[in-house]
């Protein structure tokens, strides 16, 4: 790890925001490190866009601090902050050409004509729009507009780049391409970036770290792997992919053998204890659909195997999706690469739940 990685460039300190009497941000604190791409993700109304607008200076906070490079900036208007935003609708100036859009900020900073031209060319090349500087905005495709918006935001080399749902106006294929390109660009320029999205998979695939928000509160901050594999509550577990929850009570913990068991409605389940789990704890086992093994005959020597009956089976090709009932409990299973072994409704099947499942404590 280089020293840069752990140096916070942006610090949010206990930010509160009210709209009328409604508190939309309830004490947001976090740090963004230099060169990092952090995603704010959450269902609509969770406050992620408001938080981004507060960082950019478009919305006033009611209490708290925004610190950029060691200086408090939350009292400054947007034009005096070293952050640049890309709005969801790009907000390109429709009465200007691509080059005029990109050079808008440079002209305000009173750059020399020649230097502006140089910089515009450089930026156009960066976003792969060489030769389109003279185009009017409405003559561009959605993806091209997105690139212009990026180039414009990057023109003044901001310390932090703010992207508000930048891909939501593109069609599905283009979204995937642009997602990759934004990430590539960000890594190349090593620019600190905050990316707001409501799409958890977009967040998973692009981020260094993800900030999951709900109702104005940060639920969890972590790398995509941490968020997916070790969610700290049910909301997050369910937010980043489908999950089977299985309620149970811990009835044995053996630290020496790194083994624990819990009794659940479908029987005893053996698992690897992650944290300080004690006997008698009420827990929820987080079982992802793709981790469950499904087979037609009883596998030998595998623990946590239960017999059930297929309720619904959907063959998708690359995988098969099942709903299987075990003792009245419903399980969703993704069977990767099913080939010829596709189980039909009412068939008896055997499900094996892996031992290294994540466990949440219940209150």
């Amino acid at each position: 790890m280089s020293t840069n990685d752990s140096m916070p460039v942006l610090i949010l300190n206990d930010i509160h925001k009210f709209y009328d009497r409604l508190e939309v941000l309830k004490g947001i604190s976090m740090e963004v490190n230099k060169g990092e791409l952090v995603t704010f993700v959450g269902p609509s109304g969770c406050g992620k866009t408001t938080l981004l607008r507060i960082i950019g200076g478009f919305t006033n906070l009611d209490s708290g601090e925004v610190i950029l490079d060691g200086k408090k900036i939350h009292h400054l208007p947007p034009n005096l902050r070293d952050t640049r935003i890309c709005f969801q609708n790009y907000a390109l100036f429709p009465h200007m050409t691509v080059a005029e859009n990109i050079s808008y900020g440079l002209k305000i900073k009173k750059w020399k004509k020649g230097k502006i031209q140089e910089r515009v060319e450089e930026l156009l090349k960066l976003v792969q729009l060489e030769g389109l500087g003279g185009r009017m905005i409405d003559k561009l495709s959605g993806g091209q507009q997105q690139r212009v918006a990026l180039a414009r935001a990057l023109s003044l080399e901001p310390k932090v780049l703010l992207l508000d749902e930048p891909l939501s106006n593109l069609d599905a294929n283009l979204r995937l391409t642009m997602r990759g390109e934004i990430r590539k660009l960000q890594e190349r320029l090593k620019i600190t970036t905050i990316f707001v999205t409501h799409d958890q998979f977009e967040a998973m695939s692009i981020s260094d770290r993800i900030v999951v928000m709900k109702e104005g509160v940060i639920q969890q901050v972590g790398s995509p792997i941490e968020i997916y594999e070790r969610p700290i509550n049910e909301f997050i577990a369910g937010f980043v992919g489908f999950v089977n929850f299985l309620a149970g009570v811990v009835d044995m913990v053996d630290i020496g053998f790194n083994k624990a068991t819990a009794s659940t409605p479908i029987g005893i389940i053996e698992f690897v204890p992650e944290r300080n789990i004690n006997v008698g704890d009420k827990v929820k086992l987080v079982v992802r659909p793709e981790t469950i093994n499904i087979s037609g005959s009883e596998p030998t020597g595998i623990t946590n195997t239960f017999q059930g009956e297929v309720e619904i089976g959907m063959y998708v090709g690359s995988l098969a999706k099942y709903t299987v009932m075990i003792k009245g409990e419903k399980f969703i299973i993704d069977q990767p690469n099913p080939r010829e072994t596709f189980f039909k409704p009412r068939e008896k099947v055997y499900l094996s739940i892996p031992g290294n499942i994540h466990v949440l404590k219940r209150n």
Partner: protein
Amino acid sequence: MAKAGGLYVPQSNLWERVKTFINAELVNILAVVLFLLLVIFLLYPIIAVLIKSVKDPQGLTLSYYFKFFTKGYYFRSLLNTLLLGFINTVVCLVVGFCLAYLTTRGPLGLRKPLKIVTMMPLIAPPYLFAISLIILFGHNGIMTKAFGIQWSLYGFTGVVVAQTLAFIPLAYLMIENTLRSLNPNLEESAYDLGASEVRIIRTITIPLLAPGILKAGLLVFVMTIAEFGNAAILGGRTPFLAPDTYTMIIGEADFEMGSVLSIVLIIPCIIIFFLHNYMLTGKKFTTIGGKPVASEPRKMTPFVKIPFLFISCAAGLAIVICFGMVLMASFTKILGVNNELVLTHIKNFDSNLAIYNSIKVSLVAAFIGAIIGTLLAYVIVRGKFFGRNFIEMISLSGFALPGTVIGIGYLLAFNAPPLKLTGGIMILALNCVFRFLAVGVEAGISKLHQINIEIEEASSDLGANFLTTFYKIVLPIMFPAFIAGFIYTFMTALVSLSAVVFLVSPGFELAAVRIFDRAVYGEIGNASATTMKLVVIVIFCMVILNYITKKTGFDISQKKGSVTV
């Protein structure tokens, strides 16, 4: 058995076939009838004026036009009118922009009060400002006497001031509308890239608003040059086209020259109507959608805030003072001369009779106007015949035609059989119907666009014939538009002066005409009281309209005309 020999064709009698025909062609039949009405009551009067202006006993002639352009007085009247329109438009746009900017971007607490004050002139006839200026700056005016101000109110500047105050809301409403629909992210992006507020306004806001501002400007221009009351009351010896037409016809009975003045006045109006409706429709900057973000109040720099606030407050203050003057004049013997509180002006019998007459005429106009407007909207949206756009254009053109021209046109067109209407109540109502048709028609059109034609088709599919469908499905849906058209026509007809001033007959006085007469004769108390009564009625109508707007989500204030007189 019966069809063994071949196809069985049901034999229908003649009546059945007529019924089927009517049922299938009702929309087209309706269209023809409405078209004829538009031709008779809107096009024919204008053509009558045109013919009058080029005809003399020997045949066709252009001598009257020659006289117009060679005789200094007439030509000066044209120049004055255009200059008035130009100055007025510029001032209204500047003030309108400042107000609109403050009420959409400015401090939250200021937005509502400023908006209310700005909209106040909408509830009053424009000539209210002429009256209040007389109270303040006339020969016996309060300011004239108190401070010895020697401002010659009667003349060009007086008219400009009165007209500006009267038409600020029109400019404001249209600019505010475009300003509100401007994506706030655009200005925020410029802000983000380092621009100051002045720079944002100069490089982003105004360029993007330009089409809307231009449209507003054209409308204000047309309204200003066509407006009759203020120029007639305050014009003094300065000639303007609209009041001069009146002098020509009523004072000197010179119908030929009156017609020439009318045609000269109508030409810029028609040109602008076309510019307004057709050339500017395509010019609109579109941006990619996304969630609409409410424009959050931001700190305005003093460089913008101070001048904008100054201009806006000055305009607002002037409007409030004018209203206050007329209100006070209604309850005092002679405001500024004898400030004794009296109720004689309010109780004045003739004034109340005139109000009663106006209400009667306006109700007739509103009823006919709402029906024709609703039907026209239906025919325009649902009809499938050639010339639909033409019908739409004519029915919307009424608002662009100067009232004086319509007045003379009706006088010329309906003065002899078979359509002798002069001297009656119908001629007073009908001119209002066709001049103010635009709002009812537009309301109907936008209402109809909200409903899918498949609703009507479903009704037919279930066995209803055209009339049943229209009665059971279309009318209920269009009812809010009908009411909107009704109230709008009622309000505008009530205060309308420019056309009816030609058409009233002795012994049947309308409120607007009475106010005009009293103001000209200097009986300000009487004129003020009658004006205030009209204001009260209009406020009452506005409240009803507002209620309907809230109930149905149909916003009439965004439509064309506001109160046109």
